[in-house]
């Protein structure tokens, strides 16, 4: 044996949580922090039931505005479950919160938290993740309404462009990039086919699938940008409604 050799006692090559030297905990910590901030803010806004509409402008948290006589609570509660369900069942967000909140695992090569009874997505409640495509259908309807809201804010009462309208259009663009790059849509667009060259219909679906795949490559980026934009759009509209922030008109 060489003299440069020293010994550290152990009984198994993998005894501790991990032997990773890098800051593996940083990414899940940042994700958990980001999600928690958004969830707290969105919950507060959903129950605030005020400062969400001014003229033709409406907050994305309250659109479409559904007012029912028998429902005395905030109208946001009637609509927010759709985008919330879409994001909660999204394949990117699943990765993010399984790591950040459930620690299964917190990072690659790091021991999971809790070992007993793991069933993954085979049993309740996580088997409900399979409903993702239904949330996609519903979230697409909501997204179309948000585009309608943005155009309505542009043309009412007369054609004009103000800061809130610009923010609303940017938000719709980012939400569209997120929604139409979704894994479920990628499958529905053409990923479920085995043969793209079969006929004209499958060839067209192949083109759509290729485009969706390009969006899908950056799904994480779209997910975070659209999460920030929808929160910021609501925040800015709230502040304008409360006369705290200005809404300058460009023309």
């Amino acid at each position, binding site marked *: 044996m060489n003299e440069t050799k020293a*010994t550290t006692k152990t*009984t198994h*090559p993998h005894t501790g949580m991990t032997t990773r030297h890098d800051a593996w905990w940083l990414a899940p910590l940042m994700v958990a922090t980001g999600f928690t901030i958004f969830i707290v803010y969105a919950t507060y806004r959903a129950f605030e039931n005020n400062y969400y509409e001014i003229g033709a402008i409406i907050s994305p948290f309250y659109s479409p505005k559904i007012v029912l006589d028998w429902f005395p609570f905030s109208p946001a509660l009637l609509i927010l479950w759709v985008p919330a369900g879409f994001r909660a069942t999204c394949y990117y967000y699943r990765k993010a919160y399984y790591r950040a909140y459930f620690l299964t695992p917190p990072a690659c090569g790091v021991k*999971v938290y809790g070992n007993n009874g793991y069933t993954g997505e085979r049993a309740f409640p996580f088997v409900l993740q399979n409903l993702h495509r239904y949330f996609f259908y519903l979230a697409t309807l909501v997204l179309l309404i948000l585009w309608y809201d943005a155009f309505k804010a542009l043309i009412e009462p007369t054609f004009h462009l103000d800061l809130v309208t610009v923010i609303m259009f940017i938000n719709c663009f980012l939400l569209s990039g997120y929604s139409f790059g979704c894994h479920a849509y990628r499958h529905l667009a053409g990923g479920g086919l085995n043969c793209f*060259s079969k006929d004209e219909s499958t060839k067209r679906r192949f083109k759509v699938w290729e485009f969706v795949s390009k969006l*899908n490559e950056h799904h994480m980026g779209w997910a975070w940008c659209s999460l920030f934009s929808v929160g910021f759009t609501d925040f800015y509209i709230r502040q304008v409604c409360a006369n705290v922030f200005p809404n300058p008109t460009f023309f």
Partner: protein
Amino acid sequence: MAEANLKVFRGEKDSGTFENYKVPIEEGMVVLDAIHYIQQNMDPTIAVRWNCKAAKCGSCSAEVNGKPQLLCKSRMDKFEPGEEITVQPIKTFPHVKDLVADVSWNYEVNKKIVPFTPQPGHNWVVYQEDIERVQEFRKCIECFLCQNVCHVLRDHNRKDGFYGPRFMVRLAGLEMHPVDSANRLKMVKEDAGVGFCNITKCCTEVCPEDIHITDNAIIPLKERVVDEFYDPIAKFFKSVFKAK
């Protein structure tokens, strides 16, 4: 000459010690070179499995500083001078000796998968757009790093219910093949246990061939399972239009 400080697991059948070695660093050196240096100059009994040293045979899988990777693809110049470099065998499979683990379970799983079953009478003209997805999966070198890092196998030890990412890749390659005629979706859901995967993407992170295991293999398989078992509307439309 600069020296690297390696801490290598030595022992047999899960029992052993971490031993430290100082190895001179040369330009272009990888961790496998350092292990070979130890083998040739310090301790010829150290066991390491390797073959090509070109990241193509998938033999030298291990864990360097806790990260599953190929020893032949882990460059020494990415470590800080004087940094302790921990080298361990892969965790998920039975330990044999030093850096060698017994990965034979994987070959047993492979035998359970219904092999390529061509459609009878197919003319074998296949267009690039139809086969491109499958070609990505054919890059797999069977290093089993994805199997090793997958927490379902690594921490929960559910080898009884989950085939692991490597075999999800094989199943996806077969299911998406334009000439194949077998239906393995029941196997994907039940025996292969795709539902155990919670898509935390570690398999993709460690793949030395950069196969997008989660996005291109596991998630599409999950969606096909949804088509077949969880989505009556999609099943209805599929039966009406018979697009496949």
